[in-house]
Structures are given as C-alpha cells and as structure tokens.
C-alpha cells in the first residue's frame, strides 16, 4: 500500500479532485441534499456553525481513514454497525478531549454531539468511499466532503446571524444608529425555515452558474 502511494504523488490531480469536487459540483448539501437536518439546527449563529463544521471535518477525516483501514476485515453483514461504532466512539472521544483541554469550545459543541452521529453525510461517505478505497484518498474524501458541508453551514450561519441578530460571531456589526432609525432584526432569520430558504438560494445560484447540474425533463 505504501509503495503505491510512493508512485502516486500525495496531491495528484485525482487526489486534489477528491478534495475539491465536494466543495462545488458534488456538494453534500446543495447537490446531494444530505445533512439538511443539522444544517437547519445549528446555523442560527455563526459560532456554532463553525464549531460544527470543524468537528465534522475532524470526525469525517479520521473516520473515513479508520473505515478504509478496516475495509478488508469488515463483514458486510454488520458493516453499518461497524461504521456507526466508529463514528460514535470518535465523537465521544472528541467531546472528552475538548472537555479536558478546551472547555469553552466543548460547551458550544455539547449540543451537537448527537447531531454529528446522526449526520447522514458521514455514513454516506463511509459506505460509498471509505469501504472501497485506500486510506489516503479516503482521508481526503472525508475532509473534502466535510468542508463542502462546512462552508455551506458557515455561509448560512453568516446570513442568519447578520439578519436575525445584527451580530457576527457575537459582535455587534449593525450599528446602533440603524436601530435608532427604525431598523429591526428579522425574527424569521433565527427560526429554522430561514435556513432552508438560504440553502435554496445557494442551490439556485449554484445551478445558474453550473448548468450541468440542472436535471433534464
């Protein structure tokens, strides 16, 4: 396995593609429409969106690699359970480590631990890629998909916090003068439906730019 990697450069065109396509053309949220549940739940503010994105990057990068290392030993009949076990233990491990060394971040994360486990993108990638590819490409695929998921989350969180609370990352950005002049925060932006509307808008823009994504009929 190591010998193969020596022949093929670590960041060959094929491997770079594994990282980049999930950001755009094969984006898990906007194209595959996976992971919508957590995209609605955590994006009311920018900070939890960022924390969630980073945690999913960590869990997915490591998880896809572990699954890929185990892929030849996993009995197909219990593979889903094996994948779940890997995800669940990684998430618990991440949570425990954060609690010990980065308590403030862990307070943010605690709500979302359950949501990471249920994130269908993770199991989707384990099943579709990790189970049938070598560790390094699997690692890249995991990171790539998690980033594709993450940037949408951050974009949605950005818009929702700005419109809904007038703040970004907890800092006031809309000046008090606006409020004095009658500006009001949009209450709808902090409710989940707004996340769907923004995701919809992103999908719309993406398909307008990339005509090949438009289904025929």
């Amino acid at each position, binding site marked *: 396995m190591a010998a193969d990697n020596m022949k093929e450069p670590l960041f060959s065109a094929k491997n770079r593609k594994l990282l980049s396509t999930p950001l755009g053309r094969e984006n898990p949220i906007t194209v595959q429409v996976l992971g919508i549940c957590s995209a609605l739940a*955590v994006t*009311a*503010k920018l900070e*939890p969106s960022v924390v969630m994105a980073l945690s999913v990057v960590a869990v997915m990068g490591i998880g896809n690699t572990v699954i890929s290392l185990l892929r030849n*030993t*996993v*009995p*197909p*009949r*219990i593979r889903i*359970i*094996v994948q779940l*076990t890997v995800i669940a*233990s990684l998430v*618990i*491990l991440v949570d*425990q*480590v954060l*609690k*010990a*060394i980065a*308590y403030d971040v862990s307070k943010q994360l*605690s*709500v979302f631990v359950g949501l990471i486990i249920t994130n269908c993108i993770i199991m989707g990638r384990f099943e579709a890629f990790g189970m049938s590819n070598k560790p390094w490409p699997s690692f890249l695929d995991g990171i790539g998909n998690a980033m594709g998921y993450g940037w949408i989350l951050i974009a949605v969180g950005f818009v*929702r*916090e700005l419109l*809904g*609370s007038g703040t970004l990352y907890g800092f006031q950005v809309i000046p008090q003068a606006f409020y004095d002049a009658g500006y009001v925060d949009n*209450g709808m932006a*902090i*409710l989940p439906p707004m996340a769907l509307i923004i995701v919809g808008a992103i999908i719309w823009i993406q398909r307008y730019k990339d005509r090949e994504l438009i289904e025929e009929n």
Partner: protein
Amino acid sequence: MFSNKYIFTYAAVMVTVVAVILSSAATLLQPLQEKNEKIEKMSGILASAELKPAEKSEMLKTYNEKIVEEWVINTDGEIVSKYKDGEFVKGDFRAFDIKLEDELHKLDQMEKGKDVEPHFPIYIAKNDGERIFIIPVRGKGLWGPIWGNVALKNDFRTIVGTTFGHKSETPGLGAEIANKPFQNQFIGKTIFNEDYEFTSIEVVKGGVENSNVDPKHGVDAISGGTITSNGVSSMLKEVLSVYKPFVKKHII
C-alpha cells in the same frame, strides 16, 4: 465469505477495543475535566456579582479573595455551616461542594413526606466593603437543564447581577439567556417587595410594558424562546423561595 463465527468474534473484539479506548480516555481526562468544571462554577458565581477576572488563570485566586464566606442553610432558614478563610466556623461542609441538582431532588422528596434534609448554599462576596449574597439556581429549560447565579445586595432584595447557563437550549432563541442583554435586564430588580413579601422575578412574554406585571419584579422574555423564558421564571421562583425562612430569620 465471512463465517458467523468470524462475525461474532469481530463484533466482540470491536466492542472491547472501543470500550477500552473510551473508558481509558474518560479516566485519563477526568481530573482535567473536573478542574474545568470547578473553574466554570467559580466563574459563574463571580460573574453574577461582576467580580470575574479577565484571565481564566486568575479564577481560583480571585475566588478565594472575593468570596469571603460560604454558608449552608436548611429549609427552616437556619445556617448549618459556615466556611470562612479556608476553615469551618460552624458545621463541616462547604457550600461550594453542594450539588444543587441533588438538593432540589431532596426538596421534592421532602415535600412528598420523605425524611430527608436538603441544604442550600449562599456565597458571600465582599466588594468595596459591600456585602453581596450570591444564590445559585437550577431548573428546566426546553431541551435540558438551565442554571444560573443571582447576586443580591446586602438587603437580600435587590439584584446586583445574574448569570444563566444552559445545557442544550436552541442557539439564537432559548440560548440567549446565556447572553448579557438578557441577564442585564435583571439588574436593579427586586425579588421581595418593600414588606419583604416574596415576589420573585417574572420573565414576561410580550414584554413587561404590555403586561400587568410590576416592572420592579419583571423582565422581558426572549422572542422565540418562550419555554426557556418560562423555565427561567419558574427556576427563580422555585429556588429563591427556599430562602424565604432565612430572610425572615437573618435579614429583616
């Protein structure tokens, strides 16, 4: 391709390996986690009275400096334990070691007629010669527990400051109770009226202005966070009312 025996062995080995990894991680990290929790608790207590140091590493020092006494009271309002300057003046347990969750459970049991004795903590801070009472509170939000600290002036009526925390309230909605704009509303409000009748503080949906709640005893709820707001109301009412006998005996 894989025999049943292989599958069972595989599952057993996997579960064992995962169990070993997770339990050793939990055991190794536990001391650090407990230290963090302790600092977090101190931070909440100090923050409610606006005494929190800017640096987290200063927390323990500031706590020992500013929190001059820790009292423990029972439901009859008697002080059963006093801890001052690192030693016990009376009794033998620190307010800091009390888990409010357990005591509230005991209170519940007691009301049902069981023979238990709940104890409640009072922290006493000194700031510029002024005595400040700090009362920790705990209750239920929408998704999980919420908690906080209420700092009161020497008269045990007027609120100097509050902090609230939560386990899993919705970000942007209920979770706003953990932010300054909500907490600052409480400053200057009173939990007793002039005749020391207990009023608590009500968190009013639709705003205090538009309701018949006395603005001295009410604050505005969070829009979209009604259940969490109601949770704060009932938490304050339930926990602070425990201190009524204490106030009668020692304050008035």
